[in-house]
């Protein structure tokens, strides 16, 4: 136990004395958050749209005015035939076309429902998603105002729901993803590098010839990073709350428990990488290509999983960050508890268990 404590103290020395490590550990979270929060916002303003109005009554006029005065949309072309829609899209300027059906006002007030077709240019799925979101929330707003005028609730169809992030602020979406990214980075990348560094410098030779057991070396390497990841998570969360006003509706206890679980998953992945790579450089390459990219691309951080082709959707299931993202979004934005998240939690726990046992088994008690 004493030898184990000595090992952990040594690890902390390594971390606090290496400027680069410190920068990655503590500088990056802040930089990332500011970058994603301010610079890479993908809110859309002045998106070009076209409207096909088959009805031209006072309600469609009001809806049009509401849409165009929102600041999100600019009217590009007024077209009157459905057959022109494709041509408008082909030009590439218009990102969305809204089609009102005939006798819109009459149907809405008499039958209680009317149809709006929202067609978006899905070659950029992100923008398309956003635009549809904006449009439908504006239409919903309008619909609510109708309720006050008439005795029954008229319905405009289709109803695209946008819960949890009604203002569509991208930073709300980014914070959970960012937490996942940072935890993955700190945990997996740093541990894989720190273990391979011992191999590269030859100190692993001495550690192996010592009475330290493999799991002591591994756990000793991991504990400092576990601790620092926690500090990082708290920092990012604090920044997100204070600077960007991101809501936090769920329980902090559950959040940190799930974060702990995800960190363990990431750490065990890092150890697994270190058991297969001989140099720090290889470890870094594997960690970046093998872990960072899936976290950014396949977890639903930036691109929604549902809009991926099915092979990638299947593949995304083995990306731990995907499950963590579902959990964090659930806790932060929806405020739901473990009763809804136990499945994702179990998946993460299972993954950690597999990674940890594989890496302890694969940890070499000798040189090659």
């Amino acid at each position, binding site marked *: 136990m*004493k*030898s184990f*404590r*000595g*090992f952990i*103290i*040594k690890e902390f*020395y*390594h971390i606090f*004395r*290496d400027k680069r490590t410190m920068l990655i550990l503590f500088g990056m979270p802040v930089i990332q958050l500011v970058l994603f929060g301010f610079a890479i916002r993908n809110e859309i303003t002045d998106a070009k749209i076209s409207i096909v109005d088959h009805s031209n009554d006072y309600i469609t006029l009001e809806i049009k005015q509401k849409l165009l005065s929102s600041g999100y949309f600019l009217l590009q072309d007024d077209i009157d035939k459905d057959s022109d829609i494709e041509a408008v899209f082909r030009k590439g300027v218009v990102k969305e076309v809204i089609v009102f059906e005939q006798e819109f006002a009459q149907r809405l007030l008499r039958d209680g429902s009317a149809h709006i077709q929202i067609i978006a240019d899905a070659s950029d799925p992100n923008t398309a998603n956003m635009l549809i979101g904006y449009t439908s929330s504006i239409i919903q707003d309008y619909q609510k105002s109708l309720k006050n005028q008439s005795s029954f609730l008229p319905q405009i169809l289709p109803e695209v729901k946008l819960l949890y992030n009604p203002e569509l602020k991208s930073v709300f979406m980014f914070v959970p993803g960012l937490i996942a990214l940072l935890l993955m980075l700190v945990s997996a990348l740093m541990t894989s590098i720190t273990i391979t560094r011992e191999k590269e*410098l*030859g*100190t692993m*030779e*001495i*550690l*192996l*010839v*010592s*009475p*330290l057991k493999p799991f002591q070396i591994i756990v000793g390497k991991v504990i400092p990073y576990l601790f620092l990841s926690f500090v990082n998570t708290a920092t990012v969360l604090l920044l997100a709350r204070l600077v960007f006003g991101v809501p936090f509706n769920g329980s902090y206890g559950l959040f940190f428990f799930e974060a702990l679980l995800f960190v363990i998953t990431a750490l065990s992945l890092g150890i697994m990488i270190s058991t297969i790579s001989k140099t720090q450089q290889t470890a870094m390459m594997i960690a970046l290509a093998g872990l960072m990219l899936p976290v950014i691309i396949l977890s639903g951080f930036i691109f929604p999983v549902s809009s991926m082709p099915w092979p990638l959707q299947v593949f995304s299931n083995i990306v731990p960050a995907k499950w963590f993202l579902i959990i964090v979004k659930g806790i932060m934005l929806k405020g739901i508890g473990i009763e809804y998240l136990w499945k994702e939690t179990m998946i993460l726990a299972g993954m950690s268990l597999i990674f940890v046992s594989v890496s302890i088994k694969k940890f070499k*008690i*000798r*040189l090659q």
Partner: protein
Amino acid sequence: MPAIVVKNLTKKYGGVIAVNALTFSVEKGELFGFIGPDGAGKTSLFRILTTLLLPDAGEASVNNLDVVKDYKKLRTQLGYMPGRFSLYQDLSVEENLKFFASVFGTTIEENYDLIKDIYVQIEPFKKRRAGQLSGGMKQKLALSCALIHKPEILFLDEPTTGVDAVSRKEFWEMLKRLQQKGITVVVSTPYMDEASLCGRIALIQNGKILGIDTPNNIVKTFDKPLLAVKARNTHALIEALRKYPHMHSLYPFGEFLHYTDKRVQFSNDEIHDYLTTEMIQQIEMKPIEPNIEDCFMALMEKQDHE
């Protein structure tokens, strides 16, 4: 009871044989040296004996413990100082020592008497980072770290490579003192002049042991008279002696050439006359005692002929 027993030990890397069917034993309390050039297989052999590598064939035991089966127990009993400086450069001298003491479940104070002689020399720099120490200091620190858990047997892989002459001498004196304290010390070195400092040596080349004995007995195996030859133009001298039909071996040693003759009976004047006819000027010739390196060359040549 021997401290190390090795039988037919073989280690291959792909097609390259690093350790070739070695058989030898080292007694308890010996100061034993493996002498050989780079790539002779010294490091591979040390790594097998310190349980870091698995042999491909044969067996080895250290302190009666098999290096493969009983590696866990053996690791608590041996001290190992790898060839490359393997301490944490970003930790201070004191922190390194403390760390290795704690890893072995002991403290600096507990075994201070063992490392005292060595550690007092680097103690003034105990707050300095290990990366900023000189080569000799680094080796002293590495030795302190390898000794901190009071090992019964100590393996040092080329501890004096890249260390200045004064520090080398000091280092060997330390090893002698450790031997006197009852620790079996096994050293490897590429420096032939260090051989005489060991109790027994094994000359090793291409994974094979050329000879194993005390340094004196090894020198005695050299059975030919040895001549040191020097001339104004060394290059011309080499050319001339190579052409000489009675030449047996010729190796350059600094400014002299070490020469042996095929004949059992010959006089130095004969060679002198021959060189004069070859227009060699300022010839200097003297019979000398062979050193370990001469023996190494002779044994190597003998092996090549077999």
